[in-house]
């Protein structure tokens, strides 16, 4: 079991969701986050005062999957989120020790799907 964490551009969220549904990955948690990549990002101007290098708005997805779903999930996220420009984001895959469904107390693979 793996936990896939993806940081993506906010405006790509709908496409990523679409691709994930196509890959039959239906259970996701979505967060709005602020972060800093290597890119300077969009520069904002307030009454002529320029601000650069501020924290950028991103969306973070958390998806718990069984091992055979890891590759399809990664592919789906890339397909939905990739624009080819700086700031497209990252995907982290981390091992997951346990997964428990609260309603039934089921554990492991059973609880993920």
């Amino acid at each position, binding site marked *: 079991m793996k936990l896939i964490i993806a940081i993506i551009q906010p*405006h*790509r969220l*709908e496409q990523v969701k*679409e691709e994930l549904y196509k890959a039959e990955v239906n259970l996701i948690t979505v967060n*709005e986050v*602020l972060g800093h990549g290597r890119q300077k990002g*969009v*520069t*904002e*101007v*307030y009454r002529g005062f320029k601000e650069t290098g501020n*924290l950028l*708005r991103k969306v973070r997805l958390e998806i718990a999957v069984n091992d055979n779903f890891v590759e399809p999930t990664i592919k789906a996220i890339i397909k939905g989120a990739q*624009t080819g420009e700086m700031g497209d984001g990252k995907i982290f895959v981390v091992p997951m020790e346990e997964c428990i469904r609260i309603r039934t107390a089921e554990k492991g693979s059973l609880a993920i799907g």
Partner: protein
Amino acid sequence: MRKMLIPMMLILLTGGTAFCETVSPMSGMAPVVATPSPKIDTGDTSWVLISSALVMLMTPGLAFFYGGLVRRKNVLGVLMQCLIILAVMSLQWVIFGYSLAFGPGKGFWGGLQWFMLHGVGLEPYPGYSSTIPHQAFMIFQAMFAVITPALIIGAFAERMKFSAFLIFTLLWATFVYDPLAHWVWGIDGWLRNLGALDFAGGTVVHINAGIAALVTALVIGKRTCYDKYPTPPHNLPFSVLGAALLWFGWFGFNAGSALSANGLAANAFVVTNTAAAAAALSWALLDWRFNGNPTMLGTISGAVAGLVAITPAAGFVGVGGAIIIGLLVGLFCFISVGFLKHKLGYDDSLDAFGVHGIGGIWGAMATGLFATKSVNAAGADGLFFGNPRQLWIQFIAVATTIVYAFIVTWIIYKVVDKVIGVRVVEKDEAIGLDLTQHNERAYTMLE
């Protein structure tokens, strides 16, 4: 070919008679109805000035009404479009717009005699009102010229380029709003002479902007996401605030159109409030019956629809007529927004056509049904008071407005699209107009 369309259509519309004098805008002042010695009335003047301020507040009100309905990445885009219209149209109006719309002259426009308000002074101009300063009338009308193009914003919200929007607005105000205002309200305007009843701007403001909204929605096309997922309002409380400000400002819009602090103004005030209430309630009940719950969005949409519908009728109908106009406009707009739009498949993002177009058409026709001389002796009786001809006259005014607004808006929008493009690129649409058009965002996440 396109250049030919406007004059050709005008000739068709008017049977070739009303525009014989089109080419002589500089001919002398039109004969003015003899009014007993024009003298400024302080009560009338203060009411019209206050009303002007009330109508001014409607544009920021509309900005919040629309702003709450868009996604949060576009809220500044909408607010900015409304507020910049307040700036652009205020200038257009005092420089040449007022002259084109209200200047004396029987033609297509009023001409340019009143360029830079030359000759528009502090004394009354009896052709429009003999008890208030001419400039008070002018500034009252300026606020109408501001809000009308702002109404159209609802149709192309979330995808129009700001530069194209500015150019379109200026052209539209000059070539669509100003001539129509001249025909309906100007001295010797041909629709006014025909006897069409439009108390506060059902045709000039609402049908006109509503049809322009339909055209722009058709030409610019759907938002990219339109068929894929819904775009829920990002801040409904804003929309409620905006609708409340619209309702408040509408008292100036309608009751102020009496141009006097008198009984007629009181009648307009009462029926305006009544129709808004009836329509808000009817939409809420329809929501309840057909969608399961009475919704906040439905209720405020109903209120605005009611205000739209009573606008042409406010000085001609009583409370009974106002209730029926309000209840039915709730139904008509509910159908047009909830069913018709999806059936026809155009993306009028915030229902500018569905509410202002449909509501305006119903209001103008309803004026021909419910108008009565017992409310306003200077008006006319409608169908239900024994004068079926009035309904026909109303129909001519409505049809003229629809045809003219449709064709000319279409031409202007297409030309702007050809020259600089009306639509933002897909990526900008995805990122949102706030950042891509204005380099600002409405909400921060930290602090």
